[in-house]
């Protein structure tokens, strides 16, 4: 995760500003979330360093369904529940799972050269740019909930562990 430190800082800063700009979060709540975010960053607990999670679960100052509604209504994004999808290893796509954790984004399908990405951080411009640069712009974006994304990444980690174990056996 350390290699994604700059992206984590930038994407969280942009997400926080965007949430305030769009009236989804009050500045005072963002100030509190920023404080907790910096504590996580400084304790090197980068997986916990998420302004979104802090706002949703610690401060309870953002309602996730409202955020998802915003993505659908204003950003014209489709939503996906990753729990209902069969997920594969990210390795054939040359995608590092730590980047997925760092950006709260996962590629969940790849059809005819186009990648389907599910993200909780679509409102953060650096996340969108990072992935579009990485995948040469051939991206279709979907919104997803934080719980759905976390479970999906855990399932992918298990897939990777199984792959690693199989490779060791060979």
């Amino acid at each position, binding site marked *: 995760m350390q290699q994604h430190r700059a992206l984590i800082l*930038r994407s969280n800063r942009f997400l926080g500003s965007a949430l305030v700009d769009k009236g989804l979060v009050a500045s005072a709540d*963002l100030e509190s979330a920023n404080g907790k975010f910096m504590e996580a960053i400084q304790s090197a607990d980068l997986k916990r360093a998420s302004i979104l999670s802090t706002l949703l679960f610690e401060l309870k100052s953002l309602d996730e369904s409202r955020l998802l509604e915003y993505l659908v209504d204003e950003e014209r994004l489709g939503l996906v529940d990753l729990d209902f999808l069969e997920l594969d290893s990210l390795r054939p796509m040359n995608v590092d799972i730590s980047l997925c954790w760092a950006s709260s984004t996962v590629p969940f399908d790849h059809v005819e050269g186009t990648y389907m990405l599910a993200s909780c951080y679509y409102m953060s411009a650096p996340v969108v740019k990072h992935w579009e640069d990485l995948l040469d712009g051939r991206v279709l974006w979907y919104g997803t909930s934080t719980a759905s994304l976390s479970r999906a990444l855990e399932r992918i980690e298990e897939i990777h562990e199984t792959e690693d174990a199989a490779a060791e056996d060979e």
Partner: protein
Amino acid sequence: MPHSVLILDDDADFNSLLTDIFEQADYVVTSLTDPVEAVDVFRETEYDLVVTDHKMPEMTGAEFMKVIKKIRPEVPVIMVSGYLENDTIRELIGEGVGGVFLKPLNIFSLLERTSELIEEAKKLSAAPEGGDEGEDAGVQLGFAFRSYPCKSGASASFAERLHSLRNFKSTLSLIGEPGMHYRSICEDIRGFYETDAEHFIYLSAGSFDEAQALALVEAGQKGGAERVTCVLLELETMSDAQKALATKLAKHEGPFEEVGVALRTIFCISGDLDSLFDEGLIDENLYILMGTAEVRVPPLRDCNVDVGVMAQQLVVEIAREKSLASVPRFERSARDLFRQHTWERNYEELRAAVRKIIEDNPGDVITHAAVKSALRVEEGASPRTRFESHLSSQQVDYIRAASVLFGGDRSKTASFFGTDVTAVEAKMK
């Protein structure tokens, strides 16, 4: 058909003099000495222009103007007075006064301005709705804002956003291009509060240290402040120690933990925050702290309708500073030049250009040629100066790019350019 003018001055002699001047210039004049009566008369009668004194017993000229602007905002107003403070003049211009004339009057300038204002008002009333953004077609803000006249969409949105964020809890960031007038903008924020319990202090790279900051906060506290807002100007030019102190200030840590008054911080920064972060000029703490309430300061090129008014405000300020007998004004084509210019160095460049114009003694009317000449000087007196300036800015860009390339490692950057670390650091600052 002659135009009609309402003249209001409680000094009967001066009122009579003004009446004679306007009548001899073929205006139909109503002269009154009582502002309350003048409001009633204005409400009942169509006028093309109003001339008012400022200092009157029942109501000041500014108050009178506010009342009649609510009745018919399209009628231009000229203010005449024996003496006016710079701030009052700026305020009057900001509130829509079409001309300010100090006694003794220059009759010809007064009549010329009267004629211009009536023509402009006629053109505006003839223009279709939603047409071109005219200089007087400003957005009506519900609060005072002087750093921008807010006659363009960008500056009006900026003012409204600042006003909506005026009760920010701990940090606010103003991010703009080089040459912005951050201090005036922060004075506007200060002006959003009617109470004296809000105290603003200004800290810049030249002098910001723990002792100075604490002393200023303490002085504010002793002066009755309930909350002190610390404005950090040109944050990007501060030393690492100053930036670390700025972080402590914003987080109320270290020496600022025990301060017995509420503290807030406004960060003013020129440049792109992300580039400054990449270059290591802004650390992680500051970078995140600055994202809480962040406002982009509009560059002058995005507020071209404002620039002519800002130039006139500067003329007033400089004329006052130089104790000129009258305040010069721009001819219309000269003001258009201000609108068309790109203002690379923003307000700083505008102020330098206006100062240059006034120092060249333009007389009562600032011509197109005078403005053109001053803008040319500001762009660089000679090709050599312009070229040197261009190379110098390119040099800094290249050094910053190399610094990003080498992950902020100053010694690698210095080695790449065949120079020493001190020289690189000096350029990066």
